[in-house]
């Protein structure tokens, strides 16, 4: 029997079990003198659990066994697969069904079994996400180690030149590739810095306006609008940056006699900042709202104006949270890919001039991995090294954000 019929039979069995279990429980509960008994559908669920859990465990075991390099002739293995396994599964399900129905009586603690299963499912869900993260980190780590076997660490971390085009064939003439990542990180920093210069003041001021100055009617209309802005796909921002803002900056530059390339860091940074504004403003909005009303009252009661209250009481009280929000925004800007792919381009210039073109780590990762690749070439592996560094940087930022927030909290509570 193959997989799907087996699944259907199992589900049918559990449906029958549910029906039968509830029915038997109904009779038993009616007859029982006990004051409070589990409800019939809970008995039904109990039977279903007994019918499904053993086969699922068996299946998991089976898959694991097959993954171990057990030497077996294909013929016998197939026979076991087709006949032995389904029979085993059906036996397990049937056994579970039989035992559980036999055990039904009003005093059985079926709630406990059901709660226990819920508990296990929840734990499994969180373990899966943790393991996934761990798996990603490990795979990054291994590939990065491979990369550093081909390219020395010093070149990667301290090299000033990035041009990852390696020769495809041994006899091919051409660059041998150089993997100095400094221009990428300075580019990322430059664009992130520009983005934060746009996003932090605008986001913070709009949050202050929304929480302290706007009437509740205005707030009710505009706040959802801002949140819609946060939902615009980044690719839209990307071509906005590339086709509108970049060209606009170049034209402005032309008219006042400054040379601005249309793929300037400035255009990409400004648009990325715009993308992050709703992020900063909605986070700060929540944080400012959480400042207790009693502090505002205290300040107004002393004859402070609104702006004095905002500057001297509300913002200082909200500062730790705001710093946290800004750091989160930074780590988002660093990881942002689409806008810079479209607006900043691939030229790895080492410069601090926002009017020139730069590239970022994320752009280069995309560049390294698009198209047909050999999986063990230095070029492909470089993407893993970059990704690992990016991961570590954002991780550190988030940890710092947490520490800052916690430190301030200790001071103020």
């Amino acid at each position, binding site marked *: 029997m193959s997989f799907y019929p087996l699944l259907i039979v199992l589900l049918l069995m559990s449906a029958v079990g549910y029906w039968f279990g509830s029915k038997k429980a109904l009779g038993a509960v009616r007859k029982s003198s006990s004051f409070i008994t589990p409800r019939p559908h809970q008995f039904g669920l109990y039977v279903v659990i007994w019918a499904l859990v053993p086969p699922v465990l068996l299946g998991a075991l089976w898959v694991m066994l097959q993954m171990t390099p057990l030497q077996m002739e294909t013929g016998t293995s197939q026979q076991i697969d087709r006949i032995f396994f389904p029979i085993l599964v059906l036996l397990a399900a049937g056994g579970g069904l039989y035992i559980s129905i036999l055990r039904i009586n009003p005093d059985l603690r079926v709630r406990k079994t059901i709660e226990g299963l819920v508990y296990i499912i929840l734990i499994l869900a969180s373990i899966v996400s943790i393991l996934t993260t761990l798996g990603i980190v490990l795979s990054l780590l291994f590939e990065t180690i491979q990369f550093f076997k081909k390219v020395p660490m010093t070149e990667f971390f301290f090299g000033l030149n990035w041009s990852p085009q390696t020769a495809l064939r041994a006899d091919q003439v051409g660059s041998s590739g150089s993997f100095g990542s400094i221009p990428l990180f300075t580019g990322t920093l430059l664009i992130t810095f520009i983005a934060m210069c746009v996003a932090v003041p605008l986001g913070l001021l709009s949050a202050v306006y929304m929480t302290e100055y706007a009437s509740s009617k205005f707030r009710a209309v505009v706040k959802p609008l801002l949140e819609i802005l946060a939902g615009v796909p980044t690719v839209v921002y990307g071509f906005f940056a590339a086709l509108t803002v970049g060209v606009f900056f170049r034209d402005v530059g032309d008219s006042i006699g400054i040379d601005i390339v249309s793929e300037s860091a400035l255009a990409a940074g400004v648009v990325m900042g715009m993308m992050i504004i709703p992020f900063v403003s909605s986070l700060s909005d929540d944080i400012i709202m959480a400042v*207790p009303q009693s502090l505002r*009252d*205290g300040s107004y*009661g*002393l004859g*402070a104006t609104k702006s004095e209250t905002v500057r001297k009481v509300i913002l200082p009280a909200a500062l730790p949270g705001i710093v946290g929000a800004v750091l989160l925004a930074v780590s988002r800007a660093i990881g942002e890919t689409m806008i810079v792919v479209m607006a900043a381009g691939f030229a790895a210039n080492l410069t601090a001039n926002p009017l020139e073109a730069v590239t970022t780590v994320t752009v280069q990762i995309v560049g390294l991995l698009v198209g047909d690749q050999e999986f063990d070439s230095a070029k492909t592996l470089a993407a893993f090294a970059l990704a690992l560094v990016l991961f570590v940087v954002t991780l550190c930022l988030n940890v710092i954000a947490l520490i800052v927030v916690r430190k301030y909290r200790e001071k103020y509570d």
Partner: protein
Amino acid sequence: MQIQQIDEQQAARQGDAAEMIIKTRDVDVFYGDNQALKHVSLDIPKHQITSLIGPSGCGKSTYLRCINRMNDTVDGCRVEGEILLDGVNIYGPEVDEVLLRARVGMVFQKPNPFPKSIYDNIAYGPRIHGLAANKDELDEIVLTSLEKAGLIKEVQDRLHSSGTGLSGGQQQRLCIARALAVRPDIILMDEPCSALDPIATAKVEELIDELKENYTIIIVTHSMQQAARISQKTAFFHLGEIVEAGDTEKLFTSPSDERTQGYITGRFG
């Protein structure tokens, strides 16, 4: 109005012609469509303690917040009628409510020190109003305010540690000191002792009693004993109206309205 007249006559008879610093005339307050105060008229004597009592939701806090126009900060709140402070209608067009609040200080139910140092908490008001020309003057104001609030001994060697690290009672006295630092004439207190234990309460009451030498104090309280202990005048609010107002002693010994009688003997409220 009638009550007022009786009250004034009484005052005249006792030869105690106290000057009325606040005169409230027919004040109505609305939160949206809901009327919280109805035709409230009340006079507050200078340099005395007036307590406001009444069941929960009867409008005591609302009345208090009218006097320093804190209600202006509430969305949808509307005040009608006149409140005269030294003869000037504080709801008149020429009055700046922000400056008014410097003259009429407020202490809240829950101690609400700013998350700053003790020093900065008290210096907050003087700084925004420019009351001190230099650091020495500011130090002076901070220290005298702490002294007036009876807190100086407890905090003099930790002026630069956080105000939120004090005990509840100390925090409340810090808030009183903070209000005193802007040199108000009137101090409004909304249940200032409700979050305090009996010992801290006794300290704050003692302080309030001393303060009446130089300040006019209006205090909302749920404790009849407290009102009787510390105040000279009492007003009883019920469902947004003033039922009875006058000398504390008279109101508690021989109330003229049976609703007052009922409230002070604990039959409702």
